[in-house]
C-alpha cells in the first residue's frame, strides 16, 4: 500500500545523496569515465582503460558479430549498429562493442546529432568479463534477439540487438572462456564468474573505501523505497529505519547489496537509458494506482537481486525492483512490474502564435521534433490543421519553404487532375464493358453516402462534399489500382477532406496516409494480422493477467480490436475527437505504433470488468464495440503514453519491422497484390 507514496518520495530524492568520489553522470559524455571509475570501486580490475588501445597486437579475437545494434531512442531512426567482439588478451576475456562509422542507414538527419551522442556514450572499448555479473538473454517471438549486460557494479548496458543472429555462438564462446552458469531463478539469466552464490560476489563490493558513507545515505532512502526488500520479519524494526552507522553490523550480508554504491550509480546511469523519464516527474494521473496495493512484500531479495533488466530504465522503476518473473504468482508480479510512470497532463492545442514561432521567415519548420512533441501533447488548433496536417502526414517536408509548398500544390493539382481524368473519361458504353470499374464505383458510391453523414459538412441530400469524397476515392483506386478501394478508406478520408477543404490536397494527404496504412486493407489481411499480433505481444508484456485471461478464453486473436486498429479508432470517438487523436498518432512522437499502446491502455482500463464479468469472446467483442463514444480520450492517451514509456525497448521488440503504420518493406511483387480480388 505504501509503495506508491514511498517510492514517489524516494523518487523526489533520487540521486540526491551522492558520494563525493563518485562521478556525476548528469553529463552523458562523462559516462565512459564514470563507468571506469565505478569499476575501480568494485576493485575488479586495474587500469583497463589504457590497455585497450596500446596492445592490439596481442589481441586474439574469438567472437565477432556485425550488426549488433542498440536502440537508444524509441525511433527506428535512432538505431546504432556496431560490431560486438570477444577477445583474449593476457589470458583474460574482454568484450567490446564499437558502433559503425557514420550515420546508420536507419538514421534520418534530424536524429543524427543525438545519435552521435549515443554513439560515444555506449561504445565499449574493453570490458573484462570479470566485471560482468550476468547477461540476460531475450529471445522474443517477434523482433530481434537481444542481450542485456549487467556489471558487478550494477551498471547495465542498453540492450544489444542481434540483427544478424549469433546469440548462440556468443554464449558458446563465453562458455569456452569464462565460468558461466544459467540462473536457477531465470533460465534467461547467465551468471558470469559466479561463485556458487551470486550474492557473494556483490558482497565484495562492500569491502570498498567510501562505501560506508554512501550506505548510510542510501539506507534512509531504502527505508522509504525498499521496504519490500528489507527482511523485516527476520531483522526487526531496528533495521527498517536503521539510518545509523551501525546498520552494517546489524543487517545480514546480502542486505548490503541494497547499499551498493554501484546501485546508486546505476540509478543515475539508468536514468540515461531512460527515454522519457521526464514524464514520470510530471505526475498527474494515476493509471496504475490501484495496482500498487499489494506491493512486493512477499518476495525475498534473493530473487530481486539481479533483475535490473532494461525495463528498469527509469529511476522509479529501479527502486521498485522487478522481481524475478518465473517464481511469482501472476497477480503479484503484475503489481510489481508496473511502473510509477504517468502520462503528462494534456496541453492546450498548438495555437497560431506558437505555430508561427516554429517557422523561419521562409516558412520552414525549424524544429520538427519540438513541433511533433507539441502536437503529441496538445493537438492542433482547428484553424491550423489544414496547414499542420500536411507536415504531420508527410505531404509537406518540414524544411520546405512557403514558395516550395505553393509550387508543390500547383504541380500536384495538375497531377491529380490527370489521374482523375483516367476514370472521368470512361464513357457509359465503355463502363458497360468494364465490370471492375463499375463495381468499384458502386462500392464507393454505397460507402460515401454512409460516411459521417451526421457531420454538418456531409449531411443532407445532394451534398457536394459527398461527391468530392466519392471522386477522391475513385481517383485513388486508379492511382493505386492494386489496392483499389476498401471499406474503411472513406472513414479515413472524410476528416481529411473536412480539414483540407480542397480536393487535390485531400487526395494527396490521403494517398500518403495510405502509404503507411494501405496494408490494413490488403486482401490477405497481413497488415491487420501483424498489428493484432503485436497488440497481443504488448498486452503480454504490459498486462500479463489480462493476457492470461485472453489466452484461457481463446481471445488471443484480438479480433475484438479489429475495428479499433483498421480505422484507428474512427468509430470510437466523435468527429472532433478523432481529428485530435489522429494528429497525435501522426506525430509518431513516442512510437509509430502509438495506436497499439492506446489499445492496451483502454483494455487495461476495463480489465477488471473484462475479467470480473468473465467475458467470453462474443461478450468481449460486444463490450468493446459498445465502448464506442464512452472512452475518455485524454485519459486514454495519457495512459498509452505511460505504457509506451514504460515498455521502452521491450515494447519496440514486440512489434515486427514493417508493421503498419511503419512504412512497408518493399518487395518486388508490389505492395498491394490482391490475388483474385474482384474489386
Amino acid at each position: 500500500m505504501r509503495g506508491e507514496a514511498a517510492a514517489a518520495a524516494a523518487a523526489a530524492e533520487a540521486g540526491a545523496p551522492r558520494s563525493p568520489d563518485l562521478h556525476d553522470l548528469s553529463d552523458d559524455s562523462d559516462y565512459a569515465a564514470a563507468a571506469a571509475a565505478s569499476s575501480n570501486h568494485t576493485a575488479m580490475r586495474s587500469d583497463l582503460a589504457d590497455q585497450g588501445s596500446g596492445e592490439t597486437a596481442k589481441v586474439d579475437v574469438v567472437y565477432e558479430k556485425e550488426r549488433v545494434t542498440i536502440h537508444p531512442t524509441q525511433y527506428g531512426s535512432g538505431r546504432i549498429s556496431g560490431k560486438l567482439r570477444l577477445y583474449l588478451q593476457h589470458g583474460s576475456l574482454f568484450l567490446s562493442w564499437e558502433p559503425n562509422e557514420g550515420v546508420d542507414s536507419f538514421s534520418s538527419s534530424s536524429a543524427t546529432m543525438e545519435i552521435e551522442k549515443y554513439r560515444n556514450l555506449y561504445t565499449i572499448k574493453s570490458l573484462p568479463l570479470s566485471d560482468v555479473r550476468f547477461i540476460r538473454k531475450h529471445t522474443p517471438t517477434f523482433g530481434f534477439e537481444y542481450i542485456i549486460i549487467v556489471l558487478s557494479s550494477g551498471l547495465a548496458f542498453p540492450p544489444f540487438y542481434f540483427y544478424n543472429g549469433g546469440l548462440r555462438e556468443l554464449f558458446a564462446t563465453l562458455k569456452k572462456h569464462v565460468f558461466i552458469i544459467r540462473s536457477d531463478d531465470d533460465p534467461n539469466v547467465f551468471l558470469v564468474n559466479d561463485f556458487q552464490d551470486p550474492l557473494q560476489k556483490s558482497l565484495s563490493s562492500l569491502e570498498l573505501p567510501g562505501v560506508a558513507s554512501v550506505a548510510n545515505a542510501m539506507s534512509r532512502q531504502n527505508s522509504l523505497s525498499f521496504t519490500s526488500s528489507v527482511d523485516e520479519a527476520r531483522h526487526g524494526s531496528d533495521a527498517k529505519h536503521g539510518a545509523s552507522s551501525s546498520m552494517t553490523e546489524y543487517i545480514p550480508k546480502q542486505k548490503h547489496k541494497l547499499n551498493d554504491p554501484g546501485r546508486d550509480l546505476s540509478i543515475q546511469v539508468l536514468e540515461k537509458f531512460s527515454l522519457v523519464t521526464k514524464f514520470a516527474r510530471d505526475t498527474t494521473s494515476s493509471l496504475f494506482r490501484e495496482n500498487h496495493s499489494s506491493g512486493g512484500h512477499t518476495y525475498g531479495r534473493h530473487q530481486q537481486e539481479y533483475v535490473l533488466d532494461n525495463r528498469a530504465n527509469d529511476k522509479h522503476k529501479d527502486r521498485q525492483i522487478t522481481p524475478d518473473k518465473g517464481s511469482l504468482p501472476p497477480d503479484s508480479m503484475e503489481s510489481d512490474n508496473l511502473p510509477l510512470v504517468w502520462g503528462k497532463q494534456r496541453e492546450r492545442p498548438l495555437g497560431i502564435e506558437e505555430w508561427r514561432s516554429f517557422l523561419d521567415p521562409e516558412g520552414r519548420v525549424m524544429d520538427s521534433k519540438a513541433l511533433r512533441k507539441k502536437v503529441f501533447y496538445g493537438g492542433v488548433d482547428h484553424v491550423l490543421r489544414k496547414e499542420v496536417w500536411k507536415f504531420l502526414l508527410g505531404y509537406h517536408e518540414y524544411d520546405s519553404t512557403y514558395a516550395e509548398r505553393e509550387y508543390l500544390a500547383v504541380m500536384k493539382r495538375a497531377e491529380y487532375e490527370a489521374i482523375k481524368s483516367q476514370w472521368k473519361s470512361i464513357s457509359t458504353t465503355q463502363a458497360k464493358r468494364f465490370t471492375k470499374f463499375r463495381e468499384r464505383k458502386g462500392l464507393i458510391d454505397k460507402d460515401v453516402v454512409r460516411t459521417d453523414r451526421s457531420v454538418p459538412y456531409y449531411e443532407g441530400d445532394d451534398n457536394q462534399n459527398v461527391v468530392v469524397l466519392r471522386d477522391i476515392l475513385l481517383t485513388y483506386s486508379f492511382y493505386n489500382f492494386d489496392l483499389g478501394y476498401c471499406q474503411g478508406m472513406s472513414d479515413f478520408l472524410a476528416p481529411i477532406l473536412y480539414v483540407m477543404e480542397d480536393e487535390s490536397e485531400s487526395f494527396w494527404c490521403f494517398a500518403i496516409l495510405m502509404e503507411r496504412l494501405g496494408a490494413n486493407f490488403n486482401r490477405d489481411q497481413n497488415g491487420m494480422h501483424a498489428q493484432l499480433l503485436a497488440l497481443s505481444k504488448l498486452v503480454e508484456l504490459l498486462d500479463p493477467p489480462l493476457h492470461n485471461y485472453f489466452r484461457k478464453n481463446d481471445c488471443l486473436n484480438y479480433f475484438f480490436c479489429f475495428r479499433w486498429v483498421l480505422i484507428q479508432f474512427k468509430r470510437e470517438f466523435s468527429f472532433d475527437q478523432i481529428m485530435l487523436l489522429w494528429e497525435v498518432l501522426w506525430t509518431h512522437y513516442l512510437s509509430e505504433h502509438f495506436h497499439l499502446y492506446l489499445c492496451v491502455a483502454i483494455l487495461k482500463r476495463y480489465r477488471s470488468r473484462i475479467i470480473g464479468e468473465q467475458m467470453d469472446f462474443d461478450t468481449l467483442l460486444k463490450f468493446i464495440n459498445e465502448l464506442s463514444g464512452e472512452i475518455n480520450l485524454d485519459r486514454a492517451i495519457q495512459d498509452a503514453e505511460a505504457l509506451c514509456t514504460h515498455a521502452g525497448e521491450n515494447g519496440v521488440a514486440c512489434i515486427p519491422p514493417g508493421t503498419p503504420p511503419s512504412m512497408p518493406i518493399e518487395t518486388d511483387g508490389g505492395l498491394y497484390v490482391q490475388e483474385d480480388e474482384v474489386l
Partner: protein
Amino acid sequence: MASRRRTLLKVIILGDSGVGKTSLMNQYVNKKFSNQYKATIGADFLTKEVQFEDRLFTLQIWDTAGQERFQSLGVAFYRGADCCVLVYDVNSMKSFDNLNNWREEFLIQASPSDPDNFPFVLLGNKVDVDGGNSRVVSEKKAKAWCASKGNIPYFETSAKDGTNVEEAFQCIVKNALKNEPEEELYVPDTVDVVGGNRAQRSSGCC
C-alpha cells in the same frame, strides 16, 4: 413438458456490401430503420429473446462486413453458427450472383459438422425500392437458386418498411434449431417440430 431454460442460437448474416444486413438486423431487433448506418467494420451482433414452441431462446444475430476482402475474418465469427442468413439486394444482380460465393465461403470457414444439411435462409431485400421498378432479380430466379441448394427457405423483405422481416426471422429461429444437437434438447415434441419443419421446407418456411 417444454423446458424453460434459455438457449443461445447463433445466426450469421452474410451478403454483399450494402444489401442491408445491418438494417435487417436492426429492423428485426429494434424495429427501427435509419438512413444513416455506417458500413460495418469487422463484426458486431445484436441479441433478442425469442420464444419458440414454448421455449425461450437468446437469438444472437451476427452482422459482418460485406466486402469480400474481409472474408478471411469469418473464421473467428462463423464458428458455432446455428444458421446462416444470406442476403442479396433484389435491385442488384451482382449481389445475387455472389450468393454462391458467400454460401461456399461460409461452409469452408464455419466448417459445420454436416455441411450438406446446414440450415441457410435466403432474403431478397430492398423490395420497397422504387416501387419494385428497379428490380432486376425475379422471385422465380431466386427460388430456383434456393431449390438448387437443397430447398433453402426464401423471403422477400424490406428492412425499411419491415415487410416480411418478422416472418423471415421466425423461420431463421426454426431452422437454427434444426441444427441443435438432439441430446441437448431432450424435449420430445421439439424434435417432432424439427422433423416437421424438414418436411415442409420446400415452400418457403412457416
